[in-house]
């Protein structure tokens, strides 16, 4: 269970010329922001005021940001239950996200969905499902719309490694390949389904992206702790989709630092070795990338502190906003069962 390093962060230096400084720093800021938001949520979760089942993306931020840094606002993004990183990286409103966690009326989905159903249509965060693999065919359906109407937007869907154990993934890939749909599947292989490691669920010798490839879908594997590697794979996939060259599958490997749900590291509970967590923390997507930027004189400690301060302020305001927002009223319960 090691990070995928074939095109790992050794190769970062060769990738750098593809990007402007703003792009490189933008990806850093976006990852750092997601990490700090997650930590802030985690630190207050025990208060039991955010009555929603959270699934933290800590350790996997490079995948959220690497993918979304390629997508346009008009591109549609779907996600599974681990929504926070996708929502924020796609441009979802932080205030509305925290309001949703605090079950407020002005939550991004009006307190109807909670943490597992973050959605913000205005930025193309198009939907998420708490049923593993549930949004996978839906993303293909959106791509069918794009194809039929000859739209220039593409559809993208995050899924976990365990989602590939559901049959509907293969039904969807088959159809996407058959119809050459402009859809990109990004499998965030974090090596766990709740407490069950991947080696207990899938034969070790058959890699996930190879299975996808066998369905006629162009497939790649990347180091999911390396934001530039994810970005490059995604840029290639999106270009294919926009050029009507069909679907792409990306397996992005990054270990889940926290428990499946809730706050904190649960590795002392016995299902995994705390040393394994510590091993992977050496490959922190944010720290390794910060070091790389510093080595290349693109970032210094002062700039980093400015970013930290800006993020801390934004988070503080967002929590205040959420906590001080109004609860829904009973009439809200009956809204939106049916569309007019």
């Amino acid at each position: 269970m090691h990070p995928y390093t074939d095109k790992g962060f050794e190769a970062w230096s060769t990738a750098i010329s593809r990007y402007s400084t703003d792009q490189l720093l933008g990806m850093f800021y976006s990852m750092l922001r997601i990490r700090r938001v997650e930590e802030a949520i985690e630190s207050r979760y025990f208060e039991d005021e955010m009555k929603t089942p959270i699934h933290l993306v800590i350790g996997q931020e490079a995948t959220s940001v690497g993918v979304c840094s390629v997508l346009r606002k008009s591109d549609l993004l779907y996600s599974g239950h681990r929504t926070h990183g996708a929502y924020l990286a796609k441009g979802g409103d932080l205030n509305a996200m925290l309001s949703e966690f605090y079950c407020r009326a002005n939550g991004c989905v009006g307190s109807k969905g909670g943490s597992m159903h973050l959605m913000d249509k205005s930025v193309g965060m198009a939907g998420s499902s708490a049923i593993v693999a549930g949004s996978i065919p839906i993303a293909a359906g959106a791509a069918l719309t794009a194809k039929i109407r000859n739209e220039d937007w593409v559809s993208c869907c995050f899924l976990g490694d365990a989602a590939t154990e559901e049959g509907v993934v293969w039904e969807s890939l088959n159809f996407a390949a058959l119809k050459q749909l402009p859809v990109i599947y990004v499998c965030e292989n974090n090596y766990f389904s709740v407490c069950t490691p991947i080696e207990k669920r899938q034969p070790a010798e058959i890699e996930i992206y190879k299975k996808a490839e066998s369905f006629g879908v162009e497939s790649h594997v990347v180091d999911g702790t390396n934001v530039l590697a994810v970005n490059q794979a995604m840029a290639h996939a999106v270009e294919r989709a926009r050029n009507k060259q069909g679907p792409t599958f990306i397996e992005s490997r990054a270990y889940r630092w926290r428990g499946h749900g809730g706050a904190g590291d649960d590795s002392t509970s016995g299902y995994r070795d705390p040393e394994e967590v510590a091993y992977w923390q050496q490959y922190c997507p944010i720290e390794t990338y910060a070091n790389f930027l510093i080595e290349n004189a693109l970032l210094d400690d002062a700039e980093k502190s400015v970013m930290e301060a800006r993020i801390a302020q934004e988070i503080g305001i967002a929590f205040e906003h959420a906590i001080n927002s109004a609860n829904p009223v009973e009439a809200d319960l009956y809204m939106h069962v049916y569309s007019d």
Partner: protein
Amino acid sequence: MPWAEALITSKTKSQKEHTSSQAGARELGYTEALNEALTLALELDPNVFVLGQGVDDPAAMFGVTKGLDQRFGNQRVFDTPLSEEGLTGICTGAAMTGLRPVYMHNRPDFLLLAFNQIVNHASKIHYLDNGQTCVPLVIWSAIGRGWGSGSQHSQAIQGLLMTVPGLKILMPSTPYDAKGLMLAAIADNNPVLIFEHRWLMKQKGPVPEGLYKVPIGKGIYRQRGDDLSIIGSSHTLQLATQALASLQSDVGDGISADVIDLRSIKPLDKEIILESVRKTGRALIVDTGWAMGGVCAEVAAIIAENCPGVLKFPVRRIGLPDLPTPAGFTLEQFYYPSAEKIATVIKQMLVEEC
């Protein structure tokens, strides 16, 4: 959205709600009526598309989709892989982004493979995202009966689905309704399930040309009378109507009943049910599905909750017994409701004192 304008201002409003054959009206076969509905929808709105296993094969979904692929092309009318859950999710995603899929199945039994997408997703997305998206999706299937269809090719699963918030469920019983409910379903911005019955498809009946909608959520009186309310839909309501006719020929003018065709199982038209039962004091509920926990049970509960002191005879349900459907001919005769069995129950309800 062309639907709101075109359909609402169409003939619908100027046409009186039909109850029986109108003199001189055009007659059409049941499947022809459905074919016409799909043709009109495909003509009207480029966002409508029709898919399903075999929609472009020689059988063409009992003839319902005949010729549509040639007329509208295989981007809008196409066969699918056998992936019911996947394709239901794909239709949901397409509907969420502005298309209007009509996903067709030979049998409702196959929808059981797609429950995750129907129940967990399509029905809930509008509510879950607080109204940001809607899912204008039609799922059509035809209930089977007889000729060995058995336990996995003749299930009527409307009762399983009517408890799911966010769905609409329609059960047409005439060519007029088949067309008008299909057009209403396609025009609706919610997931709508249409359960046809295979045994209705040989019927002919008056079907107006052009666009019209049968309103969703409203039942209709097929007959008016005072002694009994017969409430149901689809093929079983036709059996009940035959049963009533046989009794009338047996005993002359002595028996008259309200016959209510629910048309929509969800939303259910409580008003028409209660209006009738408050008048007659007797309710017989018939359904193509199981009597327990389904349409029969729900209608019975509505009557029980809302009609205290009204009933002259206990509510009776005629649906399927709590058994899987047998395949063989003889066992089927014991299993299914027939006009004769229904007539016996009606007689009992009218003759016996409570």
